[in-house]
């Protein structure tokens, strides 16, 4: 009766500790929202509810699965009461609840952590997640009594901010949750021991286990020291900088299955650029030669902290399902052609913006995707949709820009000029000065723009690398432009720096995120992958509209737009006023043709971003393969080493032979008769002998002493040598090393002949003699049975 009453009581203890631990661990999610109280306070009640229901249903002796089901039901009911429209879970109420969740999910997707208070609350998501985790912990730890497994949901809670925010959790939260977990472990163990047997305590008062027993002291000491080690030791453990391995860190951390998400284009850009492997994201079927510079999104506002997409106006009439307006500012005088595109997006590419051609004539992407009349980029108009798996058609506009027209362009209109030259107040003067200095002596905006592009690509001695942390704020800009310590970056820095500098000299500029160029996988089919994600500035010129520039060095972007080189041609030779098509693909200032410049840059090791051969995965695969081979071969090498060591030792060769024989028998799974005399052991051992291996050895050979008399004789000799060396004062039979080895070999061959093929295989690959820990002596001491030892004092310890 006592036992049955005390068992549920302990279940309550454990459940409460488990819930408390879960709650403390949930502090780790504090980084997701601006005010952690918004989910932590409701979770107190919610977790208490889960625990109470768990305790009650266990008390009612429901099966574990039913307990879990009941708790899940309670979570649902709780969610309905908290976020539904009525107390009863009617269909409408559930719908309202679901709407709350959807808005929470959207908020979580649209706002960078921490989600501010004025945004739609993500608390429902966190509360529900917390409840489910608490439920799992309760299920594993209390219902199933598997406390170590309950560590997994806790680890999930703990590592979520690490993986999602790439940011560590406070050591205090870690300490408290670790102690909570240890408390759960010790509670369960105490319960197990309590069930195991009757307690003989120091005095009766301690029998309840609440005294100041040394047991509790030890528990505390062990738990506290392990936790302290866990907090302080990582400081001493260096974390490898695997960027040396060509962005390997990103590749490992990202996980190869992770989808490419584009929600905030710029912050996602770098991550996707350096992802471990190059995964195709979309395909375009078009007759257009080399379709490049595909738009995904436009960044129009420079806040000082970052370039952001700014606002979008997406009325229903602007569905991306039909003709588009003329590109902004492009005059009718610009000659143009249209080409049809068929776009197919892979399932792993999730973006809230739809990839489009550089200039769009018309699109057929459905009502859910709409364009902004000003930026003309296409984004999702409805919550919960993204680009994954989308197929659509588009008509691309291919204009022929003339450098001369741009050079002759007048001042931009106010509605373009004012917003697109806006810079934050804290924009540093040094950058303005640099822009002025670089463009000094250039008479027109167009020439200034070309000078800026040339500055980034060649004159400024910039280096392309994905090393620097992502960032395009003012501080990042200043350090990127610093002559001594900076001038390293990737397309994000180049694009935003050029756009900012263009704005500082009053040229309207914006930043585009998109795909640079694809790879031709079939005639007229182009495939774009993660490595093709790119960013570049677009500058506005009257009558031409927004035209792109390419400040990123040739290592990444081999060619520049043709109109930026036209000018040079015209300058050097006025006799050639028109565009020479053969020069269109030439880099602006590269001394060599495009192809060689591109490949040499790649060979120079700009992190192998554009390298065709995937060295990193190959190296990793080879390394893993090598490791596996080593692991596979290690046991047999250990075994051979053990044999060599035995024979080499200066001890008695007979003992070495005996030990070797014993190891061989253990390997083959033949039970070695422990604690017998050599002679007795040998007589038992020879029962496992079989005829030497031959081609017609059956799978289960016949064993016994008579099957291999030669080996029996050899065994007899070994035993004799051993006996003489052990027991005889003057040994008369002392065979040499070589002879003993031969004898052992004969016996081992006989043992192998008597073993099943499976046992032989195991002996070769996983020899038991080196793999098993020899702890028999510690576990089972030889028991000397003394008959009728009444009243004899026996000792252990």
């Amino acid at each position, binding site marked *: 009766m006592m036992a049955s009453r005390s068992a549920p009581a302990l279940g309550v203890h454990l459940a409460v500790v488990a819930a408390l631990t879960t709650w403390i661990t949930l502090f780790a999610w504090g980084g997701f929202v601006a005010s952690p109280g918004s989910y932590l306070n409701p979770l107190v009640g919610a977790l208490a509810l889960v625990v109470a229901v768990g305790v009650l249903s266990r008390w009612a002796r429901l099966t574990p699965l039913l307990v879990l089901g009941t708790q899940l039901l309670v979570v649902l009911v709780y969610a309905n009461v908290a976020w539904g429209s009525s107390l009863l879970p009617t269909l409408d109420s559930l719908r309202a609840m679901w709407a709350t969740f959807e808005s929470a999910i959207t908020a979580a997707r649209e706002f960078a952590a921490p989600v501010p208070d004025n945004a739609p609350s993500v608390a429902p998501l966190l509360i529900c997640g917390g409840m489910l985790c608490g439920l799992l912990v309760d299920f594993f730890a209390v219902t199933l009594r598997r406390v170590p497994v309950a560590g997994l949901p806790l680890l999930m809670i703990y590592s979520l901010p690490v993986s999602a925010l790439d940011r560590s959790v406070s050591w205090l939260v870690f300490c408290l949750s670790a102690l909570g977990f240890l408390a759960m472990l010790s509670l369960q163990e105490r319960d197990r*021991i309590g069930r195991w047997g009757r307690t003989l305590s120091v005095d009766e008062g301690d029998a309840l286990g609440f005294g100041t027993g040394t047991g509790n002291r030890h528990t505390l000491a062990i738990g506290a020291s392990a936790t302290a080690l*866990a907090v302080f030791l990582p400081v001493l453990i260096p*974390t490898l900088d695997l960027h040396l391995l060509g962005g390997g860190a990103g590749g490992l951390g990202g996980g190869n299955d992770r989808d490419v998400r584009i929600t905030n284009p710029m912050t996602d850009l770098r991550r996707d650029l350096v992802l471990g492997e190059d995964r195709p994201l979309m395909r375009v079927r078009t007759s257009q030669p080399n379709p490049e510079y595909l738009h995904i999104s436009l960044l129009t506002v420079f806040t000082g902290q970052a370039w952001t997409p700014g606002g979008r106006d997406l009325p229903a009439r602007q569905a991306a399902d039909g003709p588009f307006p003329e590109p902004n500012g492009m005059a009718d005088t610009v000659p143009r052609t249209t080409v049809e595109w068929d776009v197919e997006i892979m399932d792993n590419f999730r973006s809230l913006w739809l990839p489009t051609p550089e200039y769009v004539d018309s699109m057929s992407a459905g009502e859910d995707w709409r364009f902004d009349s000003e930026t003309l980029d296409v984004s999702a108009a409805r919550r919960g949709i993204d680009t994954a798996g989308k197929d659509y058609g588009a008509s691309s506009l291919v204009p022929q820009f003339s450098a001369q027209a741009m050079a002759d362009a007048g001042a931009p209109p106010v509605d373009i000029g004012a917003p697109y030259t806006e810079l934050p107040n804290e924009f540093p003067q040094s950058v303005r000065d640099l822009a002025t200095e670089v463009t000094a002596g250039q008479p027109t905006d167009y020439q200034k723009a070309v000078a800026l592009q040339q500055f980034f690509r060649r004159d400024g001695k910039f280096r392309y690398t994905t090393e620097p942390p992502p960032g395009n704020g003012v501080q990042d800009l200043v350090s990127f432009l610093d002559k001594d310590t900076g001038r390293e970056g990737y397309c994000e820095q180049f694009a935003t720096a050029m756009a900012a500098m263009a704005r500082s000299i009053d040229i309207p500029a914006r930043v585009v995120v998109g795909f640079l160029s694809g790879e031709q996988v079939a005639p007229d089919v182009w495939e774009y992958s993660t490595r093709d994600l790119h960013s570049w500035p677009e500058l506005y010129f009257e009558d031409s509209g927004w035209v792109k520039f390419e400040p990123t060095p040739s290592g990444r972007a081999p060619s520049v737009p043709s109109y930026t080189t036209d000018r040079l041609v015209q300058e050097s030779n006025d006799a050639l006023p028109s565009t020479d098509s053969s020069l269109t693909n030439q880099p602006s200032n590269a001394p060599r043709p495009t192809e060689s410049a591109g490949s040499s840059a790649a060979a120079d090791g700009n992190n192998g971003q554009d390298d065709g051969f995937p060295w990193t995965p190959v190296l990793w695969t080879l390394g893993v393969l090598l490791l596996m081979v080593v692991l596979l071969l290690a046991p047999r090498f250990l075994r051979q080493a053990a044999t060599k060591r035995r024979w080499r030792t200066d001890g008695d060769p007979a003992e070495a032979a005996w030990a070797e024989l014993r190891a061989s028998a253990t390997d083959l799974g033949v039970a070695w008769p422990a604690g017998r005399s050599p002679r007795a052991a040998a007589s038992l051992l020879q029962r496992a002998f079989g005829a030497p291996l031959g081609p017609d050895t059956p799978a289960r050979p016949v064993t016994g002493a008579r099957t291999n008399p030669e080996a029996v004789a050899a065994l007899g000799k070994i035993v004799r040598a051993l006996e003489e060396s052990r027991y005889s004062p003057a040994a008369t039979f002392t065979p040499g090393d070589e002879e003993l080895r031969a004898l052992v070999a004969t016996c081992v061959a006989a043992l192998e002949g008597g073993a099943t093929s499976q046992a032989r295989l195991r002996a070769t690959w996983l020899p038991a003699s080196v793999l098993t820990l020899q702890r028999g002596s*510690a576990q089972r001491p030889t028991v000397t049975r003394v008959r009728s030892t009444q009243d004899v004092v026996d000792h252990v310890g």
Partner: protein
Amino acid sequence: MREGLAGLTARGRAFVAAGTTAVVCAVLLGQDALTRVGVLLVALPLITAYLVGRSRYRLALVRTITPQLVTAGQPAQVQLEITNEGRTPTGVLLLEDHVPYVLGTRPRFVVEGISHGWNRAVSYQVRSDLRGRFEIGPMTVRVADPFGLVELGRAFQTTVSLTVTPRTVALPTIPLTGAWTGSGDNRPRAFATGSAEDVTVREYRRGDDLRRVHWRSSARTGELMVRREEQPWQSRATLFLDNRLEAHRGHGAASSLETAVSAAASIALHLSQRGFMVRLVTADGEDRNTLWHDRASSQNTAPLLEALAVVTASQRRTFETDWLSEGGHTGLLVAVLGDLGTGDRPVLTRLQHHGATPLAITLDVDAWLGPVDPDSDVASATFLTSLGWRAVGARPADRLPSLWQELGRRAGGIVDARSERPVPLTPPGIVAR
């Protein structure tokens, strides 16, 4: 430390493995948060193993069983006195006394937080419905830690044996022959008058009357000798038990062998109480512990019952007859026999010729396998009678006292078979099938 590491439990090993993986991954990925988890998982078992492996405790155990010889179904008390002669151990000590499962559940004790000099006496009861000799012990000690990560096993070494003797029933007195003299009265008798020269002497024992000292012999031997005045002659009986495996049917407690042993024990007890020196002979020959010795009747039963407690089925097909050739076999022969074949005929004839008319209870062993006609004669009893034995057949439902009385009647006895309360032949609670 090494011992502690070897004692890591599956959970401990899993923690070390998971922690190592976590640390390696964390180092490769540069995630400090994961390193912490890994270090915690590795550190916990290692610290525990170190502390547990380091603890130096020394326990002393004294085990006492009273009584050491019990009849089946009777309880015996096992007293344990445990003392800690070393330091306070880390963790919890789990003590388990290894008791054969026949005797009941293994007693387990949890000892925690004991200091030097801690002493505790505990006792538990064992009880067996099966005869036999059981080793109680050794006690194992396992050190467990508060998190279940390490478990170190050690064991005491001594064991104490407990002998559980077969159940016996009281038998009615029947006239028995086979006494030394063959006269009607077979009780041991005091000396009749005799001359001093007839006197035999023995060594002086404490408590002997000084008036009985035989001075002449004492002078000759140099030690005090006294006259023996009690009867040196004995009424001797040989109890022959057929324990051949092939002569019996059934398994375990419900086998015919158990019935035979139980009957033999009852008869042995009965004969001893009537003053016979009883020796036990099985198919394997004479039992060394029950040779005819000079013992008082009441002390005589313990070795007999002990010998019967450990009788097991013999693989022999024929009886061992060496004991017959040691001349001077006389006395009463009582046999408890199983299935008999024609191959046994020479031995049985020889037995019959060897002494006075032997008695036999022979089991109709097939009745232990399934129902047989209760009115039919037992074939082996008829066979023995034809050889000149006085034999009765027995079936599972028969009562030993009435069978015994029946034997007496065969000998021309007079006692009414129904005068005593019937006692089942098979032990209670066991249904013969």
